[in-house]
Each structure stands twice: as structure tokens, then as C-alpha cells.
């Protein structure tokens, strides 16, 4: 055993120890604080200190948060799920289509499309004019309106990721498929798209997390309690629960769970895909 280990590079134990201690203080303590406060009773939570709960009210606090304001949190979870699934699906399909043609075909459009993609990454969206446009086409304060807004703002990033990845797929594949008589739709959806699995996973995860956690766009484009998304419940509760920190933190805890699950499932793929896209892009 010892002989085997000594052949490999030695691990730096002191450095490891320091790193672990620091990571616990900097990153884990805040999460532990959220967790502990979420299961305290109201009085103890209002002290805002880092202490062991006198009483475990995990279930009761959970029920209280869910029931608050006519089950607003449930409505918000439904809304956020619809928003995330729909906008990410559209974003990925449409973005991949653009990236595919952009990467494969040299035409006079390329310069313009590339410039627009770059613009989409850099330019801050003009908020009130966007509301004006949405009003004109009757989509302001509607879920489809917000979905399309998320798609519009997220496309550029997705296109960039896909373009870099499609570049690594050999053109011979396309040619073989075309000789077999495949049209553009079949070529794209049945030959290319399946090969994009790694980058699809990456963009789905990254954009889902982004849309699910988005606060600004729902705030501007989908106001109103009935339309609340999970981030807005947090924002609304923070004024309503100014004395009920246990419920506020229970809410924070609950809306952190979906991204956490996403992450646990796709941890490796995100890292792989992100790096491929980010470095090349």
C-alpha cells in the first residue's frame, strides 16, 4: 500500500486542510444558516443567530410556506416550470438550427448573424420598449409573452455554444446523409441533432438554471400575484415576512432544490460542455 502511494505525486495535506476549512467557513456556513433558520420557530429565527434550533419545525414551516397567500408558492412552481421548460426547449431547438446553418454555410448573411449574436450577448435589453412591443402584439402580462422574451434574450448564448460544438462534427456525415436523399429537416433533426447531445445537455442545464432563477424579466414582463414565478414569491414574501425569517428561509430552501437536483444529475456534463463551449467561443 504505502509503496504504491509513495509512487504517485504526494498530496499536499496542509494546503488541503486549509482549503477545506476555508471552504466550510465561506461556502457551507451560509447554507447551513439557511437550513437551520428554515427549521426554527419564529421567535428563535428572528434572533438571526447561528444556533441549533430549540424546536424542529421543518414540517410545520414547510406547510406554512406552501399555504401562504392561497398556495401562491405552488402556483409559482407551476408557472416557473412552464416558463423554464417551454423557453429552454424553444431556445435550444431554434438556437441549434441557427448555429447549424451558420457554421455549415458560408453566405453573405454570416457576418450579420455573427454580429447580431454578439450584440445579443452584450447589449442590455431595453426594458420599457420591450413592454411596449409586447403590449402592441397583445402578449404583455402573459406567459407566452414572457417565454418568448426569455427565448429572445437567451438565444445568443445558446447559438454560441452550439456553433463551437457543431464545428467539431465532420462534414462527411452531412454529405453521406445527403447522398442517402435526406432533406434539410431530416439531415438536421435525425443526423445532426442526436450528435449534439453533450452540448444540448449543457445548454439545457445552464439555461434552465438561468431561467428558473431569473428575477428581472418576470418582474418587468409578468407582474401580478397570479403570475408569480418562484423568484418573485421570494421577493414578495421578503416584505410580507419581515418578522418571519423562518418562513422566508424555508422558501429560499425550497426554491434552491430544483437547481440542486439538476446539478447533481448533470454535474459532469455541465463541466465538460461549458468548457468546450466557453473556451472556444
Amino acid at each position: 500500500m504505502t509503496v504504491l502511494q509513495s509512487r504517485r505525486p504526494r498530496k499536499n495535506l496542509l494546503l488541503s486542510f486549509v482549503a477545506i476549512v476555508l471552504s466550510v467557513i465561506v461556502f457551507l456556513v451560509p447554507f447551513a444558516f439557511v437550513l437551520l433558520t428554515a427549521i426554527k420557530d419564529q421567535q428563535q429565527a428572528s434572533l438571526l443567530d447561528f444556533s441549533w434550533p430549540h424546536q424542529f419545525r421543518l414540517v410545520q414551516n414547510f406547510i406554512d410556506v406552501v399555504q401562504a397567500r392561497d398556495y401562491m408558492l405552488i402556483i409559482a412552481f407551476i408557472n416557473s416550470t412552464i416558463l423554464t421548460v417551454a423557453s429552454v426547449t424553444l431556445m435550444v431547438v431554434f438556437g441549434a438550427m441557427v448555429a447549424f446553418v451558420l457554421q455549415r454555410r458560408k453566405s453573405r448573411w454570416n457576418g450579420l448573424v455573427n454580429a447580431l449574436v454578439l450584440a445579443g450577448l452584450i447589449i442590455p435589453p431595453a426594458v420599457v420598449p420591450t413592454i411596449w412591443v409586447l403590449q402592441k402584439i397583445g402578449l404583455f402580462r402573459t406567459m407566452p409573452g414572457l417565454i418568448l422574451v426569455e427565448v429572445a434574450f437567451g438565444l445568443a448564448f445558446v447559438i454560441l455554444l452550439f456553433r463551437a460544438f457543431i464545428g467539431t462534427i465532420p462534414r462527411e456525415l452531412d454529405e453521406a446523409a445527403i447522398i442517402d436523399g435526406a432533406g434539410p429537416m431530416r439531415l438536421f433533426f435525425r443526423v445532426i441533432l442526436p450528435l449534439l447531445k453533450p452540448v444540448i445537455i449543457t445548454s439545457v442545464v445552464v439555461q434552465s438554471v438561468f431561467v428558473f432563477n431569473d428575477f428581472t424579466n418576470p418582474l418587468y414582463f409578468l407582474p401580478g400575484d397570479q403570475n408569480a414565478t418562484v423568484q418573485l414569491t421570494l421577493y414578495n414574501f421578503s416584505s410580507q415576512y419581515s418578522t418571519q425569517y423562518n418562513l422566508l428561509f424555508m422558501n429560499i430552501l425550497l426554491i434552491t432544490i430544483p437547481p440542486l437536483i439538476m446539478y447533481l444529475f448533470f454535474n459532469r456534463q455541465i463541466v465538460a460542455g461549458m468548457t468546450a463551449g466557453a473556451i472556444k467561443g
Partner: protein
Amino acid sequence: MRKRHIAIALLAAGSMALTACSAGSLGSSDDSGGDGKVSLSFLVDNAAETVKIGNQLAKDFTAKNPNITIKVETRPAGTDGDNLVKTRLSTGDMSDVFMYNSGSLFQAIAPEKNLVPLDEGQNIGSLDKNFTTTVTANSKVYGVPWGGFMAGAILYNKDVYSKLGLSVPKTWDEFMANNAKIKASGVDPVIQSYGETWTSQLFVLGDFANVLSADPQFADKYTANQAKYATTPAALAGFQHLQQVHDLKYENKDFASAKLPDALRYLAQGKGANYPILSATLSELISENPGSENKIGLFAIPGSDGSKNNLTVWAPAGVYIPTTTTGAKLDAAKKFLAYIASPDGCTSQTTASQPTGPYAVKGCSVGDSVPQAVKDMQTYIDNGASSLALEFLSPVKGPALEQICVEVGSGISKADAGAKHYDEDVKKQAQQLGLSGW
């Protein structure tokens, strides 16, 4: 691979179908039934006491009018709420009836364009003139009162005052002399709670009765861009008071992060002696600090002239009908407004929440069991020693006053700079409203 692709297509199709409607509210019934029954939506802000009153009114009204049901919806309070009300009105998608501020905020929602004018059918004759002027545009009345009048004044802890042998101050100098003694006894003289920025404005807004005592024409001149906060000594005084209190370290130590509930608790427990705030917060004060109803008194913010020290009063919010409400719903909505503007309506509101000021409807009384501070307030009003706040006498009100007051009250900027800054801020609002002279 093929399976995957189809799964994605299905997912897309499914999500598109779902998005046809967003979740809305769970288990809500249909909007309008066919059999002569009408259902009204009623938008109120989401403060706990407001929601209680809204639900009680809805319940009591339906008990009298079984064919009309009312569903209370909520919106955020404060500037988020202003924004929401404006956009819902402009997109023609307002609830059937809604509650919103009177005064300058009422003027900013373009009442003549967006609201249904009221008449005798809604008892407007029996409403207090001080209220109706704040919901009037072009000599038409648009709203009925929600709740009672409230004061922007100083709530004080009577125990602290009697222990130190202090009397209620009439002038700012007396007030500051009291504060020196309070400070010496180890109690915080003035409570401030900038964790909720709106609470910072009372020394300025609540001082307006004193401004008006010094210059009865101030509001009109102000609207016409002829009087300014920075150049009118009586108006500037509010900002100076704020600065003095900070300079002399009379604030509670955590003034920068304390929130309203903290501040009310300090006052009730006698950790702080004076809290300049709206009297409407009394209901929260009492419900969160049982036993404090007779320990807390109220006096007008003191000015320079003790003989003309008046109380600044806020008119109640209004309940309005948007022009998008038509047909049977409009009739029902008018009935509902008539109910709110009747003694029955007041009784219903009193049932839901402790009144914190006199009602604006003739024949309504708040009863005898009101807290001490409300009695103090009533005394000012009965003696004719009160006047409305500036936002009810002029449509001009800047949106950044709360941040400016926080700056002056935390020593980030001085009183003159703050007043000047506010004059600039106000200009934007006046121009936006298209007032002449700006």
C-alpha cells in the same frame, strides 16, 4: 436516438399547450355565472391589515347582496404597486374594483381617462370634503374612502415622558430640549428605521401643516413652480430637523438597518421615546405589542411657532371603478362602493381591524375603545388644528424623497443639499404630468 428526438418534440408540444394559460390561482371558480349572479374582482394591497379589511367588506357585502360575490386580489404595496396599477390600467386589464391612494398618486393614474365618475348613488354627498377633494379630477368625484384619516406625527412613549417629567412639546426647540433629557437618561430620543426607507420621510412630509401655517399659499405656489423646498425656510426646516437629529446622535444605534416592526417594538418597550411615523402603523404596534394601546400617545410634529402647531393629516385611500368595468358588473361595483361609503361599511371595517383614525363618512364613528394615540389625534382634528399633507393639495410629489431623507438622516448629505435634490426630483414628476410653469 430517435426516441430522444421525439421526446423533445413532445415536450415542446406539451409545454406549448400548457402555456395557453398560466397557472393563475388554484381552485378558483368561474368569473361570471349566468343566473343573474355577478362576481367582482377587488384589488387591494397586500398589507396584512388591508387584506383583513378587504375580506371582511367582501363577506359583509355579499351577506346583504347574495347575488354579488367579491373576490379579493392582492398586489404589492409601495412603488411596485403603483407601477402595477398603472400598467394594468393602461393595458385595460384592471380588476373590476380596486383600492389605491388618493391625492397625487390618484392624479397620476389619469382618472378622467381611466375611472368611472361617481354620483349620489354612491353616497358621495355624505363624504368628508377633506376626502373628496383628494379623489376629485375636473370637479368629478371618482372614489369612496377606504379606512380612516391618518396622521403623520410623532408617536411617543408616555411612560418615558412621565418618568422624566416631560410635557408634550409645541415647538421644535422644546422637542429638542426634551430629547436632551431623554438621551441623558439612557433612552434613545428619536427612533428611525431606514431598513424600510419609506419611514424616513415623516420629518419632512409630516411637517407640512407647519409649513402651511407659515405660508398658507405654499401648496398652490409649489404646484405652479413658484415655491421651492430649498428656498422656503419653513419647508427647508423638515430637512434640517432630520439632519439635527442625526448630528446630535439622537437616533437609535441601528437606525440604518432597523425595520418598522423593530422600531415599533423599541417604542412600545420604552427603548426609544419618539417615533415620527404614520398613525396607521398603530394597528400593527398594538397587535404585535399587546398592552401598549394606552402607553403610546401622539403629537403633531413641532414647528417654530407653538401657537400654530398643527397636525398633518393623510386622507384615506380611495376605492375606484375602472372604465373597463361595464354592464352588470358596473352596476354591482357601484353598489359595492355605495356600501363602503355607508355606516354599514364602516362597521364592517371596524370589525376587521382596529380603526387608527376617524372615518371620512358621515355617521360613522370609531367607538370609544380606541387607543390613546387615536384620541390624541381626534383632539387635533376637533380643534381645527389639522391640515392635509402636501400630496393631497398638490399633484407634485417626487419619487426619490425617501432615499433623500435617508441620506440626510444618516449624515450622507446635508439638509440644503437634500432639499435641493428633492426640488430636482419633483421637477421630473411635474414635467411628466404636463403642468404649466415647469
